[in-house]
């Protein structure tokens, strides 16, 4: 049975005999947000009872497409067919009625409710909870046993691990009779073990005839579980493959278009003395989870140290502590020979005074005040600096002079001091943030996800600027989830997994495979 299905899946997608065999067919879907085209003329076919992967980089339009299929967004044009029938999916209500279920990247669970309450939401069985609960609980227990969806129905969502929350999401969808399941980046927050568990569940769902769409940017997952795969880029579906007949390389090539090999000339530079020393730093999050465990490393003048790892393994917290946003709880940090001890007065202001500049991971939330004009953002964090102020007052003329040079020297477009930064493109926003931090003449620069949501042109520029800074002797700590970026920029690479450093290597003898193994926590070096 399973073999037959796979055999069907091996056929080239385009030559499927008729649309009646496909669970879902999207024709010419286009969706714009303002003047951004998120999906442009998208065509997609998914056969019943298969797992179909959709890959693409961040911003390729995957999530938008799925939100259209789920009825959250309305397409500007195009048609949706379910089992060969044209349908109008104008609300989640409608899509649920049509048997579509979606597991969102950010879980849609009520944190204060129990697992049962969450799973039954939308299909409660009865007007009254007590009588409904009995019916639903029976059904859910059946589903849970059937597909290996192991959950504790009494637990409050707040207290459950993410892996279980995800299983609740799947149960919730099945409880509402989903025959088609969309999973949006389901493994982003999972440990490798949890991922394996999830894939087992997905396989058993497939065996029982559920059609699954898996959205991810991880090629390994596509190769290991899907039957067919579509590649999205720039809002379009650029290629369809049968998984068996493609390779990760081919998929990657299609994801980025032409294979961009940004050749970066690393200035050969003698690294100097250590300027940042981190010793045994541990950190507990507000929910009491130990997110950093005994982190130690140092960073030297003229060196780029890359921190690799899957998102959510403690990198963000590390950046927050080093930049003074979070209080240091345990361990010690030495910045330019000044030592910071736990619960000492350590904050972003002081970090800047000590020569630590910070390009934050999220420029929308942190790096910029979006409604501010460029000239106001150009001094964010440095507004107390004597160069821009005298006494209480700010010196607008000096700030304007400064920002004019800044946008010129760092190629921020449009070259305007008065446009509000929220109107700049992602790349130009990032250039503005980077420019501001570089201009503060730091001798330590912390950089988080420098190219997230940034176009290729700006990426090249940002890499250049980082290299220039390095050759001036600044020590750079680079945190990125993009392995390519880490490998091509860093001198040394440290890998983080679940709050600990699991390995360290020189970038010259690092391979993607080794790093990948370390990142997944499978291998400790």
């Amino acid at each position, binding site marked *: 049975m399973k073999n037959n299905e796979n055999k069907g899946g091996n056929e080239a997608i385009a030559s499927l005999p008729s649309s009646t065999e496909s669970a879902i067919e999207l024709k010419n879907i286009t969706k714009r*947000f303002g003047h951004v085209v998120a999906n442009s003329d998208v065509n997609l076919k998914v056969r019943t009872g298969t797992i179909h992967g959709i890959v693409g980089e961040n911003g390729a339009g995957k999530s938008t497409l799925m939100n259209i299929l*789920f009825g*959250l*967004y309305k397409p500007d044009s195009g048609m949706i067919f379910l089992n060969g029938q044209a349908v109008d999916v104008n*609300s*989640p*209500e*409608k*899509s*649920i*009625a049509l048997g579509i279920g*979606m597991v*969102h990247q950010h879980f*849609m*669970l*009520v*944190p*204060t*409710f129990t697992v049962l*309450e*969450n799973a*039954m*939401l*939308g299909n*409660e069985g*009865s*007007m*009254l*909870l*007590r009588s*409904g609960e009995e019916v639903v609980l029976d059904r859910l227990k059946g589903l849970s046993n059937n597909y290996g969806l192991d959950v504790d129905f009494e637990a409050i969502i707040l207290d459950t691990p993410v892996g279980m929350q995800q299983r609740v999401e799947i149960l*919730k969808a099945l409880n*509402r009779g989903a025959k088609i399941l969309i999973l949006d980046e389901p493994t982003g927050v999972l440990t490798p073990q949890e991922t394996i568990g999830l894939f087992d569940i997905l396989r058993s769902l497939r065996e029982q005839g559920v059609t699954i769409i898996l959205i991810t940017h991880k090629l390994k997952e596509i190769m290991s579980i899907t039957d067919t795969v579509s590649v999205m880029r720039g809002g379009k579906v650029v290629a369809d493959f049968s998984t068996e007949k493609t390779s990760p390389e081919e998929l990657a090539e299609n994801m980025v278009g032409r294979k961009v090999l940004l050749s970066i000339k690393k200035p050969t530079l003698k690294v100097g003395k250590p300027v940042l020393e981190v010793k045994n730093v541990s950190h507990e999050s507000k929910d009491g989870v130990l997110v950093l465990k005994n982190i130690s490393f140092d960073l030297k003048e003229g060196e780029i140290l890359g921190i690799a790892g899957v998102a959510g393994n403690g990198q963000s917290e590390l950046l927050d502590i080093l930049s003074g946003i979070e209080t240091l709880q345990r361990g010690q940090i030495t910045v330019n020979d000044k030592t910071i001890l736990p619960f000492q007065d350590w904050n972003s202001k002081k970090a800047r005074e000590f020569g630590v500049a910070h390009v934050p991971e999220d420029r929308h939330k942190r790096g910029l005040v979006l409604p501010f004009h460029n000239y106001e953002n150009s001094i964010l964090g440095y507004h107390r600096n004597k160069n821009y102020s005298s006494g209480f007052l700010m010196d607008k003329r000096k700030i304007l002079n400064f920002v004019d040079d800044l946008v010129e020297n760092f190629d921020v477009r449009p070259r305007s001091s008065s446009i509000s930064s929220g109107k700049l493109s992602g790349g130009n926003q990032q250039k503005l943030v980077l420019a501001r931090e570089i201009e503060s003449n730091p001798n330590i620069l912390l950089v988080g996800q420098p190219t997230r949501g940034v176009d290729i042109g700006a990426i090249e520029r940002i890499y250049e600027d980082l290299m220039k800074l390095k050759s001036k002797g600044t020590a750079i700590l680079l945190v990125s989830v993009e392995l390519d970026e880490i490998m091509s920029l860093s001198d040394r690479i440290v890998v983080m997994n679940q709050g600990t450093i699991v390995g360290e290597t020189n970038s010259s003898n690092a391979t993607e495979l080794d790093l990948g193994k370390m990142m997944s926590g499978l291998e400790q070096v």
Partner: protein
Amino acid sequence: MLESFQIIISLLDSTIRIATPLIFCAMAGIFSERSGIIDIGLEGKMLLSAFVAATATFLTGSPIFGLFAAILVSCSASLIHGFACITNKGDQVISGLAINILASGLTITLGIALFSRGGQTPPLASEQRFMPIDFLFLDQLSFVPVFGELFVEVISGHNILVYLSVLAVFFTYYVIFKTRFGLRLRAVGEKPEAVDTAGISVTKMRYQSILIAGMLCGLAGAYLSIAHGAGFGREMSAGKGYIALAAMIFGKWNPIPTLLACLLFGFLEALGVRLEGVELIWIGEVPVQVMQALPYVLTVVLLAGFIGKARAPGAIGVPYSKEG
């Protein structure tokens, strides 16, 4: 001894009278805020419906008609609130405030225009009001010591709306915690995305919730002008809506604790009136203003987390938007 028992009895009796509108409004607040909509406008809705209840009753002679008119108007005010902050995603606090100020201006203006009595409505005859209901077997019970008196004076002899307010508490409790509607309502106030993606309309849920809130505020207003009082007087709600808001927070958005908070605040007010001009041993005279301020002070202290922690619904005050 007997005298102090009498005092306690009469204190409890007025506690209930004072607490009734608070209970209606606080339950209204629970419905609204549990669904994620801040309801500063309890005060205004109560004032409007008090005016309309008295006016409609005076014009038609029927308190039943007055009651329904009050509910209708209060629900309309809820709809304005909903239009502003659900449909147009406006600020819920500003909208509620607008309703309060609007209610002040509107009741006085219309009152003067209709009756030329400086904003008051003409007094209502007793058959135009909800009058006290005496329970059966009162005479027999009154001979039972303590309990009998308690029953006769405190439990019995209120108007129908007082009993309805107790019912409203159980209604609120039942609907919010025991029904499908309640589950969805709580979900929509904690995490509207979860409800939306479960195929339930957030907008519809929130409108339904604030309409129920409107009905309850209508009952509170009617109580003031055609049950407890005999006609409408300007600014007759006198901040009760805000005390109800405080009671709701004090009761941590749960019906039963909120009922107790309403009774506590009612008791404080009754006590304040009772203690006016009375010299207490050890303490001396307790100013009535202390009793008046106490509900607010207690609520501030509670909100600041000095006695337990009041946790508001997770998504309160935030307009729901899919694409944001």
